[in-house]
């Protein structure tokens, strides 16, 4: 087994980034994020955990170029991101973003068709992505006929066919039960190994983060900042069986130490510091 040693070159970065939502019509401005610094190494699997409302989605959208940082710089492959999602970034959103008017197959083909890719190539890539995500039998189905987990897989397929080099996943399995989530986690790991892409996964589940990632960033309550970045040291060839590893408990324990106090803050308790 080879230990995961992600490439040392920086694939994407946030430097001193803050995001403040300006107040609209009398409401006060919301300082949602930062300042945060983050350097994603090419090919690594990075997870972000943090209490709800701490700015995780904001972080992802700033990194993707969907939102402008209020201060600081964001780069992807050495170039600053400015007001536009750069080519090579794929995003899977927290909400169901499948297109209900298209079949599973046409959903997956959407981006390729827009890019004017040759039909034979589209067919090959879509069939391949659907097979990889276990959706081949549902190619002709509409999203409404599928479960929530399968719809998320449709969205992952739609992203996958474009062969992104950086994949951002925003709590993609948030709505699924714990067991299904573990299995979906295995699929994300397979995807990561096969594509060689850099992955940033946002999750509120500590075990999911601990099982999947090379490094995990634990965020504070809003405004979100990284309190600690934990390296797991897992081998690249890993799967959900890792949850029974002794080191696994140690990692989740460490994350919880960081997050306990923050989660309490977001629940409205004050001044309770984590042990």
């Amino acid at each position, binding site marked *: 087994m080879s230990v995961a040693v992600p490439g040392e070159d920086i694939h994407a970065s946030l430097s001193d980034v803050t995001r403040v939502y300006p107040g609209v019509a009398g409401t006060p401005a919301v300082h949602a994020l930062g300042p945060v610094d983050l350097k994603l190494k090419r090919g690594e699997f990075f997870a972000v955990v943090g209490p709800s409302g701490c700015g995780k989605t904001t972080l992802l959208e700033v990194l993707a170029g969907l939102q402008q940082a209020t201060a600081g710089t964001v780069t992807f492959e050495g170039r600053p991101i400015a007001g536009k999602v750069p080519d090579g970034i794929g995003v899977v959103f927290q909400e169901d973003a499948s297109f*209900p008017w298209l079949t599973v197959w046409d959903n997956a083909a959407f981006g390729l068709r827009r890019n004017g890719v040759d039909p034979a190539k589209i067919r090959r890539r879509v069939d391949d992505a659907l097979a990889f995500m276990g959706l081949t039998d549902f190619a002709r189905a509409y999203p409404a006929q599928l479960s929530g987990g399968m719809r998320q897989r449709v969205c992952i397929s739609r992203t996958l066919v474009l062969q992104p080099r950086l994949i951002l996943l925003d709590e993609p399995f948030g709505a699924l039960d714990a067991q299904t989530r573990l299995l979906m986690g295995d699929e994300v790991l397979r995807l990561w190994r096969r594509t060689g892409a850099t992955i940033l996964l946002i999750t509120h589940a500590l075990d999911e983060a601990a099982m999947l990632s090379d490094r995990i960033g634990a965020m504070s309550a809003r405004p979100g900042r990284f309190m600690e970045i934990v390296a797991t040291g897992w081998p690249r060839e890993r799967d959900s069986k890792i949850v029974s590893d002794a080191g696994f408990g140690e990692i989740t324990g460490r994350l919880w130490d960081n997050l306990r106090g923050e989660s309490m803050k977001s629940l409205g308790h004050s001044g309770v510091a984590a042990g």
Partner: protein
Amino acid sequence: MSRVGWIRIAVIAIAIALLEASCRLGLIDHRVVIPPSEMADALVHLLISGQDNDQILRTFGIVVLAAVISAIGGFALGVIIHALPRVRQSLDPFFATYYAVPIFIFYPVMIVIFGLSAIPIVLMGVATAIVAMIIATLNGLDRVPQVLTKVACVHRMGRIATALLLKLPAAAPHLFTGLKLAVSYAFIGVIASEFILAPAGLGRVISDAYTDFDNRKMYALMLLLIIVATVVNMFLHAVDQHLAERRGIGKA
């Protein structure tokens, strides 16, 4: 067909049979209602004779025109109003009460302005139908999930591509419901206007037959109206259901 569907057909068949029997047995005076079979017979003869076919075509043509204007105009207005939240806020109470006001009170005004021609009738059809389409468009656009805009950004789509390829299909089932209502309302608006006062048209012919005690003609044309309105509505309803089902939108 579903069990409910069969029961529905049975109920209609029994009602028609009862009416037929009542007329034939003299329970209902022939001068008031003629038996359904005679209505059908009269209709077939009327259509074959071609005597009023131009009137029939004129009316259905006006209905189609009013429905098309309402669908396109209502959609366009809906899109514009949706883009202007302030305007929308000020119009909302107007939309909410629109169908509580009998719009027909404005028909005489339109006749005064446009004269006794097809124009006031088309306008009445549009006036009855267009607001349903506007409301359906607003409703549909409200339900376009925010996340689709983000998906569009990730695919680096422009505003027009986003509107045509994502927002429009996302709103489509609601738009179709609006179209269905617009067609029904256009029917009502046009026929009723012709009935009240019009130089020609199906409503006028029925009204004339009524004044002339021409029961056969009156009931034949009423039957024609019912058949056409039902068939058109059933067709649109079936498409509507199909769209909604595919999208997993619960509709009665």
